[in-house]
């Protein structure tokens, strides 16, 4: 009689709709998409789309992985360093003249990726060290190991590895695959694999527990959820996404570099925030991190088309990132979590 449950009528007002993080991030995405499309004349050609997909893929994969960790209540400052490490491992195991080493490289690097995820996961989930700090520490561990393997960029890659980037670059690839490869770039396949991976996980217990733990870890624990294991699984899933990005990178560049991934870490976090996902965890859709990464990538293209000289690019992208996170964050932080 006295307690009337209020229906969620905040969604039925326009302002309310705008305040939902997903909606505002989608709007920003559309705006950036339109601007980029108008600036680049050849935007809608197959060649250009393929080129864009290739350029955007690493950030998208990293952003989606980062989103999983963030939703679980963590954060990964080591994702860029991990990416670098994986490229170094790949190009150290592979020997140019021995195609089989490509398979070994993939297996070994995958194992390394799981290990990396476990280390971060132990730190965040079991030892309960603040994620910011522990992944800050591990980022230097990955950097150190990567420098051991590849003090300077280089290493070897087998020829067929190029298939992760461009199928027709591989000598001896079947013609059928080559034609498909011009429409559906391998990068897109990697992206689809990533999305599929998350789709499956999100329908399982682990998927729901990731949200539960990120939302309120005490409640999750008290409800019988193994919160440490859940957070570790989130870190491992993140590692797998980074692994996919490493495959692409080595496929594209045929070399490993201990420092290439650094700048991507911050961008992946920014992409998550731009995608409307709360940094405090428990909320937001991982697919929207994809959207956020696209938005940021479009912004970079806009900078490029505005003819800003190279030297200023880091400067401008730093500013863009602040603006990008200030906007949605301002909206999000005005709705406090209980």
């Amino acid at each position: 009689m006295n307690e009337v449950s209020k229906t969620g009528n905040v969604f039925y007002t326009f302002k309310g709709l705008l305040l939902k993080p997903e909606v505002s991030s989608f709007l920003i995405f559309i705006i950036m998409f339109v601007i980029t499309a108008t600036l680049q004349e050849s935007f809608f050609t197959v060649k250009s789309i393929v080129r864009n997909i290739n350029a955007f893929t690493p950030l998208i994969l990293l952003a989606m992985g980062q989103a999983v960790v963030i939703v679980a209540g963590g954060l990964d400052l080591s994702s860029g360093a991990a990416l670098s490490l994986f490229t170094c491992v790949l190009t150290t195991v592979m020997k140019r003249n021995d195609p089989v080493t490509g398979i070994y490289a993939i297996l070994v690097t995958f194992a390394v990726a799981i290990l990396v995820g476990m280390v971060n996961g132990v730190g965040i989930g079991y030892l309960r060290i603040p994620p910011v700090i522990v992944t800050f520490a591990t980022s230097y561990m990955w950097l150190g190991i990567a420098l051991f393997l590849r003090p300077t960029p280089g290493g070897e890659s087998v020829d067929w590895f190029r298939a992760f980037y461009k199928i027709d670059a591989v000598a001896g690839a079947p013609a059928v695959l080559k034609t498909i490869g011009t429409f559906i770039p391998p990068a897109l396949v990697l992206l689809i694999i990533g999305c599929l991976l998350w789709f499956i996980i999100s329908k399982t217990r682990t998927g729901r527990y990731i949200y539960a733990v990120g939302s309120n870890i005490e409640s999750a624990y008290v409800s019988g959820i193994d919160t440490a294991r859940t957070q570790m699984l989130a870190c491992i899933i993140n590692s797998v996404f980074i692994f996919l990005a490493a495959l692409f990178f080595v496929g594209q560049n045929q070399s490993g570099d201990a420092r290439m991934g650094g700048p991507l870490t911050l961008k992946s976090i920014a992409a998550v925030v731009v995608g409307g996902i709360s940094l405090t965890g428990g909320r937001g859709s991982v697919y929207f991190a994809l959207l956020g990464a696209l938005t940021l990538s479009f912004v970079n293209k806009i900078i490029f088309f505005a003819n800003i000289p190279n030297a200023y690019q880091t400067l401008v992208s730093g500013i863009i990132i602040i603006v990008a996170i200030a906007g949605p964050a301002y909206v999000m932080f005005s709705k406090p979590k209980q």
Partner: protein
Amino acid sequence: MNTVMSRPKFLSFRIYEKYKKIVVVFILIVLLFVFGATTLPNFLSVEQVFMTIKLASFTALFALCQMIVIAGGGSGLDLSVGYTATITAVLTASIMDGKNEPLLLAVLIALALGVMIGLANGVLTSYLKLPPLVVTLAIADILQGIVNAYVAGKAITGRPSPILVTIAAKFTGKFPNILFVLILVTSITMIILNKTKWGQILFGVGANERTAYLSGINVKKVRCIAFTVSGVLSSLMGLLLLGNMGIAFKDMGSNYVLPSIAAVVIGGVSLAGGEGNYLGVILGAIFLQTLTNLLIAFGLGDAGKWLGFGIILFAMLSAYASNRRSR
């Protein structure tokens, strides 16, 4: 339970807790020294020890910036300390040009830069409530961009004033001059943090933001000021780095960022804020420097250094975390 009784301060819990952590670090340093002395020649020489202290002083001063920001709570961290120092060094080098007269101007410029950068960090984190980690990282990026643009291919000209060189690089007898700077800074810091209202307000804000707010403290202002102080200090560090190195170069400061945070953690300061003992942080810096020396002596170079730092930081964090865990 007993009724209220007052006992002499040095028997109370808090002091015991504080000094317990410092003792741990001290023991660790001694262990490292013993290890080094037994495996390497010259490790324990007076020159080596003071050289270590000299290098550690720089880290310790950067770590002070971190400690202030961390103590204010709210997941405070300042990842822009490195590039703040770098940009100051780069911009003031040509102004000083090896002479003493423009030093005052250089200091003023450093202060101005520090205030601007610190305020930017402070406003974005406190008033706009953006996460400090991301903001300071982005600001560092921006500063890096400015430095890149300014440099744009040409070499950085300019040399530090001789006074700066004396303070930062030279020795008086066996003692490095920077040590005196450190001692001075430490004294001022300890007094401000423990004996003045500023220090207690900072710790109060870090310990419980809501309580501090309800007690009439302007939490946002306090945190903003903390970042500004960090900015000013790291900017001044830029001058000292310049004095020590003799020239300015692009990556001058960035190698100090991780160690500055690591020193704070190893020094036993809680990353959640609300407390902080600078003595522990200094010992943490000395520990890190000793470790670096060992790694370099064993020929492990850059890779070993980063890997080693990362592992040590991880290990220290695990150790402190298992103390805190309550289930």
